[in-house]
């Protein structure tokens, strides 16, 4: 498969990725495209991603977001991605719907924290962490489109490498995302 839309000569497409309330499974699925990554890196440069050491995000053509929005830092990072990225993509069930982490929405946050840090079994030094360095949890987990505008949605838990390849092709060509029946999965 080839990406038909070549960027201007000497100018690569700049891509950033982030995992918010994600499990890094979508990033693993990106790596699952195997040797096609070699084709990819000839056409794109990576900005801030968990795969590079870049700490702050610069202007990018494409941002891929894995994971829903579960805490204050997720909100901050997501808004920064929206500011810096021309095209923003919700990758995977968590970013698209909230996913499995959003199952905590059926329990009040106080009870979640209590179970994990105060009255859960086997706790040695109980107490809810309260250092200001730690981001506060939101009362509910949200899909990213409830916080910022999203240009593309790619479902799947995780999306297959083929589906991610279809997405990259669509984005780089500036067209609609077309998934085949075999590529469209929510699970």
């Amino acid at each position, binding site marked *: 498969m080839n990406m038909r839309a070549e960027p201007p000569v000497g100018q690569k497409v700049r891509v950033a990725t982030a995992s918010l309330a994600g499990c890094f499974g979508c990033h693993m699925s990106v790596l699952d495209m195997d040797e096609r990554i070699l084709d990819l890196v000839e056409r794109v440069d990576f900005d801030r991603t968990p795969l590079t050491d870049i700490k702050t995000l610069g202007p990018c053509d494409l941002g891929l977001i894995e994971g829903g929005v579960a805490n204050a830092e997720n909100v901050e990072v997501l808004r920064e991605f929206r500011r810096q990225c021309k095209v923003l993509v919700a990758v995977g*069930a968590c970013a698209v719907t*909230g996913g499995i982490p959003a*199952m905590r*929405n*059926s329990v009040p946050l106080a009870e979640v924290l209590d179970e994990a840090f105060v009255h859960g079994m086997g706790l040695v030094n109980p107490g809810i962490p309260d250092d200001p360095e730690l981001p506060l949890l939101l009362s509910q987990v949200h*899909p990213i489109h409830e916080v910022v505008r999203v240009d593309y949605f790619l479902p799947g838990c995780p999306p297959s490498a083929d589906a991610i390849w279809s997405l990259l092709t669509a984005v780089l060509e500036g067209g609609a*995302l077309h998934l085949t*029946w*075999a590529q*469209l999965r929510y699970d």
Partner: protein
Amino acid sequence: MSNDQQRSTFTLDGRRIPFTPGQTIMDAALAAGVYIPHLCHKPGYAPHGSCRVCVVRADGRELSACTAPAAADMSVESEVADIRALRVAVLQMLFAEGNHVCPACEASGNCTLQAVAYHCGMLTPRFPQRFPRRAVDASHPDVILDHNRCILCELCVRASRDHDGKRVFAVSGRGITSKLIVDAPSGRLGDTDFSAEDAAAHVCPVGAILPRDEAFRVPIGQRRFDLAPVSRVGDVALDPDAEVLAADAESEVLA
């Protein structure tokens, strides 16, 4: 008059569909082996008209194929872009209304809601998620009832009433608070005469009525809707054209 002369036809996406008076558009299409997406409809059950996924345009008007009677020489559009978009919007409302966490659901791969959403090319529920907090009823020894996945199609209501003769289920409440209830003073499924052998235990098109101890037994790739799209393995009698679809299913562009 011979039987042939009594049979009229209408067109569905340009294709002639024969029907007998009294048949709905859905009845006639399914009998002819043509799939119209549907959730609350099931052949052999009284039409319900609640899910609206079977919306078609007949002679310029949008209506539900499962309740609209077929008429001679009617022109019906189904698999066209704007009707598909209406269906996706209806599916998005259903997905955003409940907690449809497919990655954690035992029904994934065997779920008609999911399969129809694949067929219609839904990429996202789009709307703000409602995240309902409805209690799960695990009081029955053989079946679990998860109200957070229920789409109120009332197939279980109709199955229990019309096929099992039990009237275990009903839908109660108004508006967004409408919910499936069971006929027991306690309101618990375990306190009814519901049985895992009932028809009502097997008609749920989603993961709301789940048999116990059967979870995740079928490997991924071999589940009902892994093998072929719902348009082929739904309740449609396969016809020669459907076989052509089968060959193309892997590469069929949906979204």
